[in-house]
């Protein structure tokens, strides 16, 4: 078990290094006019040149990358080129908003999709038709269009929710709930239909298995068969979908945070990439990739716990 985790963590670190390098190389092409952009158009040529030296822009690509990586290993991601705010500090302010949004949404999606998917698989009939139709409709409408509709309807027309968030560091729980309710609902609507569809087919596949018939022949109640045996075997398929949705959401919140004016990672990503603030972009990318690696590791661990065969190999 421990070797499994260590091996996965090692693989994660390799991925992290590869992605850092690729991102850094990509950003290198964008950094030509950075010093001029930071100082503004009225700065003198000497000032710009001095700034370039200060930022290390006069150095060759590999030197710059290894200088950055050397600091990054110690947890020092440098400071933003534009605001001089330490990158770690900026991310720590933004991360809670995004993580709360995504985690709350994924937990709700998991619960609703499981219940709906199982109901559709077991009861069939109208619930099944609703779940199947909803899955097609859910696929057809992009998440951010749902969000726009929700804002227009519930925040702007009906004024039930604030249209823009008022989350600031240290804000109370009521502010968080009011600000995150609509975005969470938008993510939920977008994710639950596909999730329920996947759980449905996984449960149907399990219900057709021979061992279910044998369990029934042993006098085990239908409820116990469903919730203990079938759900457990269907769970890995559901988890895979949820983890993909989670990764998708980390990207999706970029647009969502813009629509709901939430001060999260996504907003930071847009701001830092449009300005070419390389330390900040690298910070955002690294944090996101680390979250993704952790989520994938968690999914593998849960799958191993659910399925003894995976555990052995």
């Amino acid at each position, binding site marked *: 078990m421990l070797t499994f985790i260590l091996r996965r963590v090692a693989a994660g670190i390799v991925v992290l290094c590869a992605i850092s390098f690729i991102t850094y190389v990509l950003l290198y092409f964008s950094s030509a006019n950075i010093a001029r952009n930071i100082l503004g158009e009225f700065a003198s040529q000497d000032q710009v040149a001095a700034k370039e030296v200060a930022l290390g822009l006069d150095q060759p690509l590999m030197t710059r990358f290894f200088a950055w990586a050397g600091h990054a290993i110690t947890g020092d991601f440098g400071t933003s080129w534009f605001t001089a705010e330490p990158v770690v500090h900026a991310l720590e302010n933004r991360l809670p908003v995004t993580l709360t949004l995504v985690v709350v949404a994924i937990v709700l999606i998991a619960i609703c999709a499981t219940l709906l998917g199982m109901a559709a698989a077991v009861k069939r009939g109208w619930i099944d038709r609703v779940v199947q139709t909803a899955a097609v409709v859910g696929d057809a409408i992009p998440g951010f269009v749902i969000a726009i509709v929700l804002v227009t309807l519930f925040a702007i027309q009906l004024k039930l929710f604030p249209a823009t968030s008022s989350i600031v560091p240290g804000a109370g729980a009521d502010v968080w709930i009011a600000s995150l309710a609509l975005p969470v609902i938008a993510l939920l609507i977008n994710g639950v239909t596909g999730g329920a569809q996947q759980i449905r087919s996984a449960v149907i596949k399990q219900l057709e298995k021979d061992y279910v018939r*044998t369990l*029934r*022949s042993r006098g085990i109640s239908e409820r116990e068969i469903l919730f203990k045996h079938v759900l457990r075997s269907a769970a890995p398929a559901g988890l895979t979908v949820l983890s993909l949705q989670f990764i998708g959401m980390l990207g999706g919140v970029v647009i969502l945070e813009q629509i709901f004016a939430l001060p999260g990672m996504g907003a930071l990503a847009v701001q830092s990439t449009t300005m070419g603030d390389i330390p900040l972009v690298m910070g955002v990318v690294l944090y996101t990739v680390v979250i993704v690696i952790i989520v994938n590791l968690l999914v593998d661990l849960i799958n191993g716990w659910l399925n003894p065969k995976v555990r052995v190999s």
Partner: protein
Amino acid sequence: MSQPAAASGQTGTVVRSRVITRILKNPLGITAIAILSLMILMAVLANVLAPFDPNFANIGKTLASPDASNLLGTDSVGRDVWSRLVFGARTTLLSALLCATVAIVIGLPTGLIAGYYGGKFDAVANWVVNILMSLPGIIVLLTVRAAFGPSVWISMVAFGVLLSPGYFRLTRTSVQAVRNELYVDAARVAGLSDGSIIARHIFSVVRAPIIIQTAMVCGIAIAIQSGLEFLGLGDPTVATWGVMLSEGFKNVYLNPTLLLWPALAIGLSIGGLVLLGNAVRDALEDGVKIKARKAAPAPAAGGAAPASRADRRKVATVDAGTEHHLVKVSHLGVGYPQADGSVKKVVDDVSFHLDRGEVLGIVGESGSGKSQTAFSILGLLPDNARIVAGCIQFDGNYTVAPGDDVVSQGRVSSLRGKRISYIPQEPMSNLDPAFTIGYQLVTPMMRVLGISKAEATSRAMKLLADVGIVSPERTFKAYPHEVSGGMAQRVLIAGAISCEPDLIIADEPTTALDVTVQADVLDLIRDLQKRLGVGVLLVTHNFGVVSDLCDRVVVMQNGRLVEEGPVREILRNPSDPYTQKLLGSMLEGKEPMTMLVPAGMEA
């Protein structure tokens, strides 16, 4: 699938034309094609359809309502909404196509090579794919934009790279499945080059999934592209639906209909693509679809059975003089409703009985209805099965009363596990792989007999020893995949006798086992039956097993009972030609049957 090369190529084209007809017959498929054709027409004829240049701004006429010259009104700087919508279709569709093309060009060949040759390339490609799939798309696109500027086309190329793993995995899995098929081996032996094998056999397999995947990918590309434009990260000089959305959102307080048109266009386009993908899938899985629809109104075998006619007449009594039979099946008919409204009968007018302590064999080849008969007694028929005639009684009470159309779960479920138990055919698939063998033995005993876990555990140990397992403790802790097939079958037999049933239904209990293990398992069943005095209904196709174990035998063919009687008599004087044929096939190359019968017993 195992046809020679030329024939499989031909069936390929037949299937394809049938698939297209099915898509056109499906209302959703037609809708999808109509929507997409409309969008494509808009894109192609944009120059004709749009009265204005998409970027022509009439400053004097901003946020105007629809009128004769501006069909859908104007936006905040006075640009014509209709013209922008039409030109937006062009950008949007082209970018979706570009994205899908890039993804296919990268994913398809690499998937083919990885799937067909495997090896190092496969390992490296999988590693790269795992990285690509764990990247959050938009963050990457933001980075790409920072590097290469705000071009829709560059974003879509990058996004195509990000989506290529979908094609890679799809192709790789299909190719791996086909690579080891016999007809591909045959083609290889016949001297076809790898290239022509791939072109001929493998493309025909991946073609349909690729079409479905492409519809989905185009949808995702449209969503992400308009998302980026919405963020204001696109090229501001190009009219796209995303830019229109963004512009509408900024003016949502002044004129919310500016949001409506681009949102509708995006929703319709993606919807059309999703529907097209589903229609292709449905057309390919047509047979499966009918089955699923048929199954829909049927209740699940367990909890949710509606009150059938049977439950209302709870106390139907069995015919006098038949109460002493352990099981009595009378004129049983089992059928499956078909798509055209008819009912396909798999069991027709079958009657027999089984007494306490007796071993009755049901013999027939596959498709004879023998297993369906056995499952009717257990009440474990598939959801869509119907009892079309007859009745079943167990120990003097109906489980299927005359006139019932399903087995009454209310009555059978209290018997199952407790008084009727079941030994399945395939040992491995009949144990839940996620739970230990001990758990799967202990839990039914706790539930059915109401005993404590400790008591159930000690009983389980004894049962495992009883069925001839050498180290019960180790087997108790093991997971099903950790034991052999013969051992698993012993575990299932232990489970079947664990609650001291009166009747054991054994469905081909030795068919899936090695020949050496078969004899052991038959010995075990015989010993247990003698020791416990339990009635056994043995379903088999093998007269050898019947002669070994059974007192009486029922022979079935095509759902009908053809012959019934004591084993000895039927073995010696089979009256029905089908029985003679079954016996003949068993006796081939063996000693004549008369050797089994002592001379003095000849009548």
